[in-house]
């Protein structure tokens, strides 16, 4: 494997890693299903004594920079990557994020003004952040960047975990408060805790200077021998008990009924962390190193064979350890307000912020919901990070004992996920007794 191919593989892996990530869930604030509202704000109480949340799915996806469909086309079982296109769309800072929430069963029991909740979820997330300098290095080469320092270290993570929670919501007058305590069990993780790799090519005779503070941690994912020999095996959804890689998290929420029509809500979700202890390995490259070419005298004395690739692989001096490490959950913060125009119409404003291992993200949406009999139709215009064109839509159906929901913050993006910069969708159902 040449060094050039290694860089290309890194770029491609980042490009295709689970198609985006962004855990925005804006239009869900308008849902008529209280289980969805409760998942977004633990202060939400139920409208029935017993509510069972059925298995559902939530997935969000976001790119900034190179989208999958921008550079990859497929024909006759061959994936083709267009380097020219990649270079034209890459931005100074690029990221990919994807979040998948597989909701298992949940049980909500309400008595008087208290709702007690318990449930199980599996969550997966993937994210990556990298500079255009990494892409340019791989596709253009370093010859036009002599004596310039290129920052090429990608920051990324690939993670899955189980979540079991117990929650409590209570309405006191016009104020609702609630919280959930969550026990987490990590399934697998591969993530960076430090991501600095700087490379400078000297103009004298192209000696390479690396200045690294890079650490990649793995729990059961990466089998690494050297840069030319490694294997990534991410078994995302696997039940192996809840006693390994244990973590804890909390969700907190508050709601205020200003009056009969106007409601303000705020929540902080996924505040917590996981401690990875099982099958842990850390790969660290720190300090400054240089590659100045082969010492011919030493080569003649010691060996008859010279491979440039082998020499380059050896200069990064990756140290392997087996130290436990922690990863924080991607905290999500939401403030929303709704106003009931009449019993069949609601308008709202929702804001969202995600505190991620990548860059923080934020969004704001203007929302409207109309009830038509048993149907609830929602519409939304949202500005999500740098993307102003997000038209959301939702459909809820209330059959009394059964409620079904489907919605997305960017309905148009679902039609073209390979090229869209940001989208999500949720499918859910609940039984109300």
């Amino acid at each position, binding site marked *: 494997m040449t060094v*050039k191919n290694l860089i290309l593989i890194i770029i491609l892996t980042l490009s295709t890693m689970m198609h985006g990530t962004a855990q925005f869930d804006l239009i869900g604030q308008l849902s008529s299903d209280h289980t969805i509202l409760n998942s977004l704000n633990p202060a939400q109480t139920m409208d029935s004594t017993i509510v069972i949340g059925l298995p559902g799915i939530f997935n969000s996806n976001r790119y900034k920079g190179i989208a999958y469909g921008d550079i990859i086309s497929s024909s006759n079982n061959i994936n083709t*990557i267009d380097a020219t296109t990649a270079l034209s769309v890459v931005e100074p800072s690029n990221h990919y994020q994807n979040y998948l929430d597989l909701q298992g069963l949940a049980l909500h029991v309400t008595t008087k003004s208290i709702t007690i909740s318990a449930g199980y979820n599996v969550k997966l997330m993937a994210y990556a952040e990298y500079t255009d300098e990494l892409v340019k290095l791989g*596709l*253009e080469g*370093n010859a036009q960047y002599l004596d310039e320092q290129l920052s090429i270290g990608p920051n990324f993570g690939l993670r899955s975990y189980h979540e079991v929670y117990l929650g409590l919501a209570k309405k006191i007058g016009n104020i609702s408060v609630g919280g959930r305590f969550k026990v987490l069990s990590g399934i697998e993780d591969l993530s960076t805790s430090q991501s600095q790799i700087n490379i400078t090519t000297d103009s004298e005779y192209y000696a390479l200077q690396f200045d690294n503070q890079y650490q990649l941690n793995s729990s059961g994912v990466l089998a690494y021998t050297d840069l030319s020999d490694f294997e990534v095996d991410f078994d995302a959804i696997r039940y192996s008990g809840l006693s390994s890689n244990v973590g804890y998290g909390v969700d907190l929420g508050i709601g205020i009924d200003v009056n009969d029509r106007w409601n303000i809500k705020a929540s902080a979700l996924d505040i917590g962390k996981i401690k990875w202890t099982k099958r842990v390995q850390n790969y660290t490259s720190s300090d400054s190193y240089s590659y100045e070419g082969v010492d011919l005298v030493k080569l003649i004395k010691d060996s008859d064979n010279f491979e*440039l690739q082998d020499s380059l692989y050896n200069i990064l001096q990756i140290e392997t350890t087996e130290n436990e490490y922690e990863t924080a959950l991607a905290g999500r913060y939401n403030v929303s307000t709704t106003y009931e125009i009449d019993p069949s119409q609601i308008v709202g404003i929702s804001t969202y912020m995600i505190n991620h291992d990548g860059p923080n993200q934020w969004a704001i949406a203007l929302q409207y919901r109309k009830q038509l009999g048993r149907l609830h139709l929602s519409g939304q215009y949202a500005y999500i990070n740098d993307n102003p064109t997000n038209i959301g839509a939702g459909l809820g*159906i209330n059959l009394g004992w059964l409620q079904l929901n489907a919605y997305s913050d960017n309905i148009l993006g679902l039609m073209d996920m390979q090229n869209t910069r940001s989208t999500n969708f949720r499918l859910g159902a609940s039984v109300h007794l």
Partner: protein
Amino acid sequence: MNNIRLLLLLLSSSLILWGCYDVPSGDTTEVVNLNGSYAVPLVNTTARILDIEQSTGDNTSILVDDEGKVTIFYNGNVIRNTTATTFPPVPGIVIGELPLPAPETVLSLEDLVPFEGGFILNKATFTRNSLQYRVKSAVQEKISIRIFIPQITKDGAVFSQTFDIHEDGIYGESFSTPYYDLEGWTLISDDNNLSIFYEATTASGDLITLDEAGLNFSLLAFKYIEGFFTQNNSSESGEVITIGVYSTWISGGFDFEDPKLTIKVQNSFGFPVRTKFNKLELTNVNGEKSNVEGTFIDEGFDFNYPTLDEKGTVAYSEFILDKTNSNIQTVFNEKVKLVRYDVTATGNPDNDDSIIGFLTDTSFYNVDIAIELPLETSINDLILGDTFDIDLSSYEEVINAEFKLITENKFPYKMEVQAYMLDANGVAIDSLFRDEAYQVAGADTSAGSTNDSPTSIRYTTFDNAAFAKIRSAEQIAIKAKFNNTEGQEGPQWIYEDYGIDIKIGAIINVQK
């Protein structure tokens, strides 16, 4: 009914949405429209004369004098002789029956101690050995026997043992005594003989003559021997010294001002030894052989040796064959690559019986032979070359490449370098420097070892067609031509800080 229709609508909508997203799952992935230019360092070497020579063979050593002048030694196998070789311990010597009737037996030491050519032993100290007696008598009485050797003493006491036979009432059979330790006992003789006495007394007090008597040495070994040793020879032949300095010579003059053959001897034997070359033959790079001629070859040379007053010390000797006492300079500058020698070492070469010598159990002599090559040389259109394997076949996407060569020459010789790409049959496909050979000026060493070393930068480019041409090359042959720089004619010394710094980088353009 309405609820069911709504449910079906929702499910079908979900399936349609999923169908819109189709993840390609190709078997292979390839990149197109790739136009990259990659700059990599290839070589960064500081090759000093010390490094170059040390890489040419395991028999090489370097000496740098106080002025930094370099001398190379090509070392030959050491000739080593020890007491164990000259006077090997003799196990289990059995001296047969002692002659009778007189209870005195005289043994010749020459029969006892093996030494080629003979000797007159004055003094010897035993080590690691012991002595056993064997006797027999037909007298059917208890017999008390005392055997003593007046010439073997220790701390003033004579070596004497007393024992009885027939105590058990068994008569007519041989009786063997236990082994009596001889460690540290010293034998002194002035006539090269060993006299052994016994007294055999019956129970009734009568002196008798034994029917049989003999003695066994478990091992005959000496810690110290002193005496006269007659002339004796040992030979070492067929040794070879490989000279690496011409291993890459192709043509041209490369003469050494003062090559030498040095012989260094360490000797702790206490008698003279003379070494003579039966053959000293030099073979050049063309396979032609020549013999070295000179005084030492004709007459041989004597080692120094410690005197009796210098027991336990080592005497050093050094002999040099150089241009003043031999034809070695003339012969060596015919591009010698092998030196083959055949020597004989002769102890007491003049057989002088007035020389009383000695040896101990740790005595030895070492003879180190080396070709000493002071690096004071004359160069005239010298061409050196070597060939290395290369493999460019995996660089299929490379469309052209530019190599940048930076050289700092600290030798007082101007250089011309060219490299040829050879195919599988050894035929040149192309050369690295197409227009002309890469020329590097020599360093100015007129101030001695300090020098002004010029730096040369050269670019060479292989375009698409040229790179395609050399992609099939399997070897690269490098030739370098050297000449003295202007104003520095005649032999020049090479100093330890002489060398050459080479840096090579490449910009490789890839297209796909």
